[in-house]
């Protein structure tokens, strides 16, 4: 079987001592694309929007209203919205970019083996882990900022009674489990989609992989959405900590 599947992304070349992988290049390309699209759109804002500006405005407004419905109106939404929307849009574009036809045919011949230049960004665990760490650390910072460091620590370590002590430990474990579950959800779904697509192409090259690709398209959108919404929920839970602890 010459199915070529690896968990780690393939290294294309070394820049100094820094290994440049195919997912790294892809993520840079997508970042640049997003910067150029949104940069050029905000540079030429008109009072009467054209088609493109109209589309972007509808996108931003709709997502802003959705974030507002979870975070509640006011300053909190304004602060958290850029982070969440950037995460959603980056993950979405990164997932959908896999469906550009022909990109997996572009390969580099290196050291006796062919290495694909493009690969789904979110199938690189490092990328997903960094995004997860950003969201989890933000949630922690928000929690500490709302209830204060000592009170927040007291949520995990209390000696009031044995039951509360163990519940605090469980809370601590659940905070760590957040990192694992949030990152593996996105990574696992996208990577599994890639593997499924590769296996199906290997078994039957024509027509049979199409429904699976459609399923992958659905996962790509839903998982980007879920990642952003879970980040949003973590942050909103952290910002409402005071009300819970006062009960």
């Amino acid at each position, binding site marked *: 079987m010459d199915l070529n599947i690896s*968990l780690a992304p393939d290294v294309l070349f070394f820049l100094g001592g820094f290994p440049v992988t195919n997912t790294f290049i892809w993520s840079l390309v997508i970042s640049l694309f997003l910067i150029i699209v949104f940069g050029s759109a905000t540079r030429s804002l008109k009072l009467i929007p054209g088609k493109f500006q109209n589309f972007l405005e509808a996108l931003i407004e709709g997502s802003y209203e959705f974030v507002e419905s979870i975070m509640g109106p006011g300053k909190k939404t304004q602060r958290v919205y850029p982070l969440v929307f950037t995460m959603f849009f980056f993950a979405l574009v990164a997932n959908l970019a896999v469906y550009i036809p022909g990109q997996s045919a572009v390969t580099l011949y290196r050291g006796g083996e062919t290495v694909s230049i493009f690969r789904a960004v979110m199938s690189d665990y490092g990328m997903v882990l960094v995004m997860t760490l950003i969201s989890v650390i933000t949630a922690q910072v928000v929690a500490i900022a709302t209830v204060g460091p000592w009170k927040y620590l007291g949520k995990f370590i209390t000696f009031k009674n044995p039951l509360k002590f163990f519940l605090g430990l469980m809370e601590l474990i659940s905070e760590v489990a957040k990192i694992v*579950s949030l990152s593996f959800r996105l*990574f*696992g779904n996208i990577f599994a989609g890639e593997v499924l697509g590769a296996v199906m192409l290997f078994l039957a090259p024509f027509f049979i992989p199409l429904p699976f690709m459609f399923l992958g398209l659905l996962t790509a959108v*839903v998982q980007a959405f879920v990642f952003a919404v879970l980040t949003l929920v973590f942050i909103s839970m952290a910002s409402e900590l005071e009300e819970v602890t006062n009960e």
Partner: protein
Amino acid sequence: MDIEAAKYLAAGLAVGLGAIGPGIGEGIVASKALEAIGRNPESAGKVTPLMFVAMAIAESTAIYALVIALIILFG
């Protein structure tokens, strides 16, 4: 048993057993969400995103199993 055969068996078992619980759970989530939308069709816009989030959370254990299987196979 051959170690390679044991690997494939382990990966298959991991995903197969790990997918049972989330499968049932996601079915319950979807059925309840559809029930809610059926009772109150105007709530569809509010229920659907929450349904996806709840499904994603129910899915976690399947994803863990999948990742374990992938690590066994390709890691």
